[in-house]
């Protein structure tokens, strides 16, 4: 099964997962606020690549961005359309003209594409010169290993290979919402090679750590001050 089919199959469950307030706290309280710090102010037109049900585009629209979302899943796009413009499209073949956007955001989507390199090449094509691409992914150091226990100070251990990472399949089943995650992190070089091949230059890198308020709410997240969970990049098209 391709990753596209994998996500399409659980699009409705994902919509409920992402839209229930307080359900995805790692997004609301940790990952997304840090990501927004890296996103430039609204310009002419913003592409949300892998928009899902639209929660990222909705916030950007609230901040003045003219958002166009794309997703490979028709169900996701239908949900996203409740919040902003969106269309079904393959990230590896975007239905836009060269230079159509001055900003692309790809929030927790690139590692779920079947062909991340082709997607980033397409991002570069649809960006105008001087445009930016902001990406959030699962951090590849986290993807390479696991905590040996459930304590805040449990060692983090890599038994396999950082270079050839096994995807981590895990299921969230809370409040009657069941979603399976297929977390595949890309090694740094694979991400940066894709940018290099596309002619994008990386101008900012962030490895966000959770705030005190977030740790108070989710005490186990304190270990994310030891081992990064997310990686954020901002690249510019020269």
């Amino acid at each position: 099964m391709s990753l596209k089919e994998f996500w399409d199959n659980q699009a409705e469950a994902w919509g409920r997962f992402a839209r229930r307030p307080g359900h995805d706290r790692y997004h609301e309280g940790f990952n997304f606020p840090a990501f927004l710090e890296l996103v430039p102010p609204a310009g002419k037109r913003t592409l949300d690549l892998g928009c899902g049900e639209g929660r990222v585009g909705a916030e950007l629209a609230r901040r003045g961005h003219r958002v166009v979302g794309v997703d490979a899943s028709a169900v996701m796009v239908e949900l996203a359309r409740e919040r902003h413009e969106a269309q079904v499209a393959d990230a590896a073949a975007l239905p836009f003209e060269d230079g159509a956007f001055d900003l692309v955001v790809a929030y927790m989507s690139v590692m779920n594409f079947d062909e991340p390199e082709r997607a980033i090449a397409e991002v570069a094509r649809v960006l105008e010169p001087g445009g930016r691409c902001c990406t959030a992914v699962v951090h590849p150091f986290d993807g390479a290993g696991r905590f040996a226990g459930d304590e805040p100070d449990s060692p983090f251990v890599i038994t396999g290979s950082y270079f050839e990472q096994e995807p981590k399949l895990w299921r969230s089943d809370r409040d009657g919402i069941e979603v399976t995650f297929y977390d595949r992190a890309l090694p740094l070089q694979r991400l940066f090679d894709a940018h290099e091949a596309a002619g994008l230059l990386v101008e900012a890198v962030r490895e966000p750590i959770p705030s005190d308020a977030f740790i108070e709410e989710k005490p186990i997240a304190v270990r994310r001050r030891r081992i990064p969970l997310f990686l954020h990049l901002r690249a510019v098209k020269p």
Partner: protein
Amino acid sequence: MTYNDDWEREAPNWIAWARSPNHDAYWEYSPAFFDLVPAPGRATLEVGCGEGRVARDLAGRGHRVTAVDASPTLLAAAEAADPAGEYILADAVALPFSDETFDLAVAYNSLMDVHDMPGAVNEAARVLRRGGRFCVCVTHPFADAGRFEERKADSPFVVPESYFGRRRFEETFDRGGIAMTFRGWCYPFEDYARAFESAGLLIEALREPAQRDDVVAQDPAEARWRRLPMFLFLRLLKR
């Protein structure tokens, strides 16, 4: 200027260590690093040259090299080994050059050893002309966060504490009758990236070289470095 006492103390050990063929990872990884280095231009700067092996290798590839180091003993050794080369005693955070003097700067395993890493990055950027490149090798921030439990191909790599923060390292290796103590600091990737960002440097290329097949064939335990990168290479562009 500030001498680098960590390296001045170790200078005799380092000269012996660095000049013994195949004694350390430089011999295995430096060819891949040089693949990332642009062709020679008008003037190349090496920051933290030590006894001079990187400067000599760059010169061998046609670069016109000016090399600096903050250890007088190491600098004298570099000069003695290459009397035609230009070697200057200088602190990486206060380079004695005008703005935009060089079209290429190289820092091979030296940014971890300077007391002010962001200051050194900023200085390298200052002396580069626009469109110039800064090529960097550092010990990989992921590898710096922990260690392999054993010197075996499939040994688990364990991070007992934290990847984050500026952490001091000091470790002595005794190999082939040469004892060498390495001292410096480890940083998460973001710390290096923020230094590049504030110096106006963009990441144009990044490499995580895996240990070479021919080295693993000779020493199977080296295969652990095909599971985790030991070094991080970067090529940066000054806007």
